Structure formats: structure tokens, C-alpha cells
């Protein structure tokens, strides 16, 4: 009899509840699906792309979109559809790697500053203030000018200029978490600072960082495209979306499709990432749950 009256409470982990919330958000799921499609197209570019993105064919130069060339061709006769597909590889890589650079550096600096406090904290945060005092595009331009153009330098530049964001978020989270009992318990148990930061503090501060990282990949893609657009990032003939837009600018009057498709590709990718980021933010934040 006693057994029949027992109420069973199904325990659900935090991540499972976040996933459940995320799945409920239709626009976030749509963003996720679009992003997966873009990744698949980028990975399978070798198979899907009908032409070599570098192959010049002057006979087919400046062809409007048709069945032969879905997105048309540029002034060198290169197939824009193939170039947009290969461009997805570069843009996604540039977005993810630059965010990884800023995320790792920002988290380490922010976590250590928040944990140790005092003079070290003041020094780190003043350095972040200095980085924040320079508009990110100008900082990117300055860094790329110093290091030289190229994919890696561009990723590094965008990565460095975004470090303060992560550092601030991580520091704020650490300041909240470091006074909670389980950190005190770990300290009392003799855990080293490094162990406490990496095993207890960082994993518990990850939610805002994941949201910020998802939203930042989009802005990093736009930032890198912007650098290529003004000619300091990736240069021709590499099929990069920003460089393709810059190239198409000269043909805006008669062949507007050259600028249309790379721009559309950037917009759809960033839109998908933003939808996903917004969904993750709502799912992670109990106050924003529907």
C-alpha cells in the first residue's frame, strides 16, 4: 500500500533541461538546421561544387545565373556557386578559430583575475579596458597591418580584439561562484588554485560563455569579411565571401549578382548563428524560459 502512494520524481540533469528548452524554441532549431546544412555544404564542397573555384574560363566570363552556372560567373569566368561553397569553409573556419582564440585567452585571464583578485585582477582588467578603448574594427586593422594579411593573422586579429568580452563575462561569473560553499570545500580539501579553477569554477561559468561564443562566431565572420572587403584580410583569388563582395563592387552597375550571393551567404550563416545563440541564451537562463 505504501509503495503505491510513492511519488516518483524524475530527475533531469541541467544540460538535459537546457536541451529540452532549446528544442522547444522553433526559431533556434531552424537556425541549428540551417547551420548544419551550411557545414555539410562546406565539408562536401569538393563533391557538390560543379567547378574548381580557382578555374578561370574567359569564354564564360560575367554570365548571369543559369542552369549551367547557378549563381553566375565573375569577370574571370569563375563559377560563383562553387566559390561561395568553398568560401563557406574559410568563413566558418575563420569564425570558429577566432572565437576559440578569444574564448580560451579571455576565459583564462578572466577566471584567474576573478579568482586571485587584488593587484593581478586590477592589472588584467586595466589591460582589457585599454583593448576595449579601441573600436574592434580599427584594432583588427592595426593588428593585420602589423602582422601582414593572411588567414591566420586575420583570425588572430579578430580573436585578440574579442578577448575583453570573454574576460569580463568570465570574471563576473567567477566572482559570483568563488564564494559558494563547494569552492570553499575544495579549497579546504587542499585543492590547488589551478585545480579549483579548471575543475570547479570554469565548468560552472560555461553557460554565458557558450551563448557569447555562439553569437560571436557570426560577428567574427562579418569582421573577417569586412577586413577582406577593404583589402587587408584575405586577398584574391582565395574564395572568401568578403573578398568576393569587394571584387563584385566594381561590377555593381551591370552584374549585381556577383555581390548578391556572397552577401546572402554571409547573412544566412550569421542569421542561423544568431537564432541559435538567442535560443541557447533563453534555454540557459531560467528567467527567460518560456
Amino acid at each position, binding site marked *: 500500500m505504501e509503495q503505491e502512494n510513492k511519488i516518483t520524481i524524475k530527475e533531469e540533469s541541467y544540460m538535459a533541461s537546457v536541451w529540452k528548452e532549446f528544442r522547444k524554441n522553433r526559431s533556434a532549431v531552424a537556425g541549428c538546421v540551417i547551420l548544419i546544412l551550411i557545414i555539410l555544404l562546406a565539408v562536401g564542397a569538393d563533391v557538390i561544387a560543379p567547378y574548381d573555384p580557382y578555374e578561370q574560363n574567359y569564354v564564360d566570363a560575367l554570365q548571369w545565373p543559369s542552369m549551367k552556372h547557378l549563381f553566375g560567373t565573375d569577370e574571370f569566368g569563375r563559377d560563383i556557386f562553387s566559390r561561395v561553397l568553398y568560401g563557406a569553409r574559410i568563413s566558418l573556419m575563420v569564425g570558429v578559430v577566432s572565437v576559440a582564440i578569444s574564448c580560451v585567452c579571455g576565459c583564462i585571464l578572466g577566471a584567474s583575475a576573478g579568482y586571485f583578485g587584488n593587484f593581478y585582477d586590477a592589472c588584467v582588467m586595466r589591460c582589457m579596458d*585599454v583593448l576595449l*578603448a*579601441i573600436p574592434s*574594427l580599427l584594432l583588427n586593422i592595426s593588428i593585420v597591418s602589423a602582422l601582414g594579411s593572411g588567414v591566420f593573422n586575420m583570425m588572430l586579429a579578430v580573436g585578440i580584439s574579442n578577448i575583453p568580452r570573454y574576460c569580463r563575462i568570465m570574471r563576473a561569473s567567477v566572482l559570483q561562484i568563488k564564494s559558494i560553499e563547494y569552492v570553499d570545500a575544495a579549497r579546504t580539501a587542499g585543492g590547488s588554485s589551478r585545480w579549483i579553477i579548471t575543475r570547479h569554477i570554469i565548468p560552472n561559468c560555461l553557460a554565458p560563455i557558450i551563448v557569447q561564443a555562439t553569437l560571436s562566431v557570426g560577428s567574427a565572420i562579418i569582421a573577417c569579411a569586412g577586413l577582406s572587403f577593404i583589402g587587408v584580410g584575405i586577398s584574391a583569388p582565395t574564395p572568401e565571401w568578403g573578398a568576393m563582395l569587394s571584387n563584385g563592387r566594381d561590377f*555593381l552597375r551591370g552584374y*549585381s549578382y556577383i*555581390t548578391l550571393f556572397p552577401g546572402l551567404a554571409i*547573412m544566412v550563416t550569421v542569421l542561423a548563428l544568431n537564432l541559435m545563440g538567442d535560443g541557447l541564451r533563453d534555454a540557459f537562463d531560467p528567467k527567460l524560459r518560456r
Partner: protein
Amino acid sequence: MIKYIVRRLIALIPVLLGVTLIVFTLLYFTPGDPALVMLGDEATPEAIAQIHEELGWNDPFWVRYFHYVVDLLHGDLGQSYTNGRPVFELLIERLPKTITLALISTAIAVTLGIILGIIAAIKQNSIFDNLCMLLALVGISMPHFWQGLLLMLLFGVKLGWLPISGWGEVGNVILPSLTIGLGSMAIIARMTRSSMLEVINQDYINFAKAKGQKSSRIITGHELRNALIPIITTIAIQFGNMLGGSVITETIFAIPGVGKLMVDSIRSANYPVVQGGVLLIACIYCVNNLLVDVIYAFVDPRVKTNLSNAR
């Protein structure tokens, strides 16, 4: 209040010093010999060595940085490698265009963004709200240089209503301002909506409604005023971003402002101009942030009280 402003101004000094260090370091490690840019490819090694000696380029890093800061304090940002003119003069000549562009863009972004945000919040979950927020999301996701090209294509090339490049006439300002302003408008609209939604169900709003106050008075006098702090922060951040973003927009629309000067200087390896441009915009950016903090106190009496108590 004055004490607070003075304290903030003093706090700006190390930040600006840090900015000079970053900008100088980046220029110091930039590959290539500036003497070659100044003298041309056919310069003799003797002439190059003489330039190095005259301009103190053989000195160690810290000595050069010290001289650089001292020169800066005297308003000397160096000279352009290409035409020998003082960088300060070149930048000041072009600054009004960049500031004008940023101010008009801000006006567009703030007006449209706040109106859209308020309507979306009032009509929460309606079709209008969803449409506004979808447009805002698309606006945020669109690279503004592509947006500029599309505006140029539609209003300049296809319809022929507006000029697509240059500066000097009223028509020249419209497309670049829209290019810079629309993205920021989307961000301000989103922020206004979420900020208004936090206020809209508060007791004092219900009380104002129960009192029979006009809805326009409730929106402007109670809801918007209380929701304004995060909106002001967003506007300030956006103004700074617009100054930075002018680099690309000025290049697209061939506007002879600081941004275009910097891009042209990067292409010709004229680094003192790039360095000066970055410093100038960073200074304006910092002052802008300071002004916003001061504006907070005027908008929100709670901030003013906190400042008084802190004293």
C-alpha cells in the same frame, strides 16, 4: 558630480596611455622600412641610413615610445610618409565628415530603433512584434558593407534617386548614413523592446493606468524613462561602433573622411596616418563612454544618489 567627472577623467589617462602603447607597438613591429616609402624604391642605402638617424629610428623601443608620447602631448602625431604633411592636420581636416556621418547615422538608428522597439513591446507577441524582431534580427545579421552595396544598387544605380559616391550635398549623406544606421537601429530596437518589457508590468505602470493617465504619457513619462539606461548604453556603444564602422562605409561611398584616409594609408603603407587615425577615434570613443556615464546621472536619479552616497 564634478568630483566624479574629474575622477573619471583621471582614470582615462592610463587607458589612453595604454592605447598609445598598443598602437605604437603594432607600428613598431610592422614589416617593411618606412624610409623606402618616403624616399621611393630607388633610394640609396646612405639616404635611408640618414633618414633613420634623423628621425631617431635607430633608438631602442622605449626611447622611441617616450619621444612618441612627448610629441603626442605637443599635438604632434608625426608626418605623412607620402606627402610630408602633419598627420594631425590631415585628420582634423577629415574629422568633421566622419563625425557628421556618425551623428546622422545615430539619429536615424535612435529614432527608428526606439519607435520600433516601443511598438513591438506594446504589441507584444502580435504579428507586428514578430515582424519587427525578425527585421531586427536580419538587420543584425547583415554585414553593413553588403547592405551599403544593396542600397547603392537600388537607390543609386536602379532608381537613380541618390548619388552613390562623394561628399558635399545633402543627397551624399543619405545612403552612407542608412548603411551605418540600419544595423544599429536593429540592435537598439531589440534592446528597447526587451527593456520596455521589463518595465511594462510594474505596479507603478498599472497604477498610472488605473489613475486614467493618457497612454502616450505613460509610455514616454514612465515606461520609456525607466527603461532608458540600457538603451543609452546600447546607443553609446553603437556610436563608438559607427565611428569605427565608418572606415568601411567611407571606403564604399568614397567619402573623404578619417576612415577612408586610414584605408588609403594602409594600402600605401603610410603608417603614421593609420596610427594617428586609430588614436584619434579611440580618444573620441573614450570621451563618448565618459559622457554616457555622466548622462546616466541625469536620466536616472538613482545613479545620482549612488554617486552622492559614494562621496
